[in-house]
């Protein structure tokens, strides 16, 4: 019985990882809970799922990679002022702004938001944002924030907090792991400075953010210290080219300079 449950959980993750969301029935079936991820069999199944998806990606998707550095001075200043006036439950972390900016930017560059199905790119009408969540002890899951292009940072953060808690404790539904149109890998404050991710098939792109660090930065001819983040793009060269990819990163940068509008 337990083995059956674990197999089912592995299958649910596998379906989320490798089935084109556009043709997946998982989202419309009654959702099966994914049990806690603490046991060894489940970990092994998750590892196999990741291995299959990543191998398929590198076998099938001709990746190209772009990187840019974004000044988060305006974003962190706005965040600090906003948070100082609010109770803890309503405060935001910088990651919420990064996700909101990515979701909005993805709406503006459809060649990077969608899926590669049957030999052609199929841009998606909405932005469903996959967010990579690392699990303690290894492995990862990528729960999906549906219609993220319409949500502000506060709503995104509330949804993400709920998904992360359940990803780690078990209890994610199959529908919450399916349907992403673009994925974000955010390494967080203890992570490396840059990440060039592997696209999650059949998606068209993955946006990566490294740790935010205070670094020297030129502003108006002077060198000043600013909180900087490296934003990277891994994109499917079958579906887009460098200029489109550059446009996505530039749009994320532009949006993060006006955090109050996110």
């Amino acid at each position, binding site marked *: 019985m337990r083995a059956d449950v674990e197999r089912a959980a592995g299958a649910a993750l596998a379906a989320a990882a490798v089935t084109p969301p556009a043709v997946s029935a998982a989202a419309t079936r009654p959702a099966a809970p994914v049990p*806690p*991820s*603490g046991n060894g069999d489940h970990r092994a199944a998750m590892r196999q799922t990741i291995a299959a998806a990543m191998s398929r990606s590198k076998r099938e998707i001709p990746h190209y990679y772009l990187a840019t550095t974004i000044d988060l001075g305006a974003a962190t200043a706005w965040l*600090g002022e906003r*948070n*100082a006036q609010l*109770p*803890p*439950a309503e*405060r935001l*972390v*910088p*990651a919420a702004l990064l996700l909101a900016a990515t979701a909005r930017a993805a709406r503006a560059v459809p060649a990077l938001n969608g899926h590669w199905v049957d030999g052609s790119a199929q841009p998606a009408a909405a932005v469903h944002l996959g967010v990579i969540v*690392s*699990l*303690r*002890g290894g492995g990862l899951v990528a729960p999906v924030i549906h219609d993220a292009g319409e949500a502000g940072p506060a709503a995104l*953060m509330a949804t*993400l*907090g709920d998904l*992360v*808690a359940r990803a*780690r*404790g*078990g209890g994610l539904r199959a529908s919450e792991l399916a349907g992403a149109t673009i994925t974000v890998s955010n390494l*967080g*404050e*203890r992570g490396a400075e840059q990440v060039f991710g592997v696209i999650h098939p059949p998606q068209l792109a993955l946006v990566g953010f490294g740790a935010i660090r205070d670094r020297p930065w030129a502003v108006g001819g002077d060198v000043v210290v600013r909180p900087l983040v490296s934003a990277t793009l891994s994109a499917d060269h079958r579906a887009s080219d460098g200029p489109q990819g550059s446009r996505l990163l530039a749009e994320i940068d532009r949006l993060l300079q006006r955090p109050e509008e996110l």
Partner: protein
Amino acid sequence: MNTTDTERRLRALLGAIAPDADVGALPADADLREELELDSLDVQRFVAAIDAELDVAIADREIPGLRTLADVARRVEAAAGEVPR
């Protein structure tokens, strides 16, 4: 609340945020973020839970200085002497 009570309640809150970590085995003087692999969202949720459950509002600017469970327990107990909100 004495220190033992405070730490026990904080461990319970952390356990809900990091259900896949062994919060019970965490030494009080260990670096929380390192030991439990907490990211900024986890820390924010911990601070929100402390506000909700223990009625202690920790400011954003204080958070970087709170490295260990003992640090947080001291901060929570210091608030017990403050005027209730």
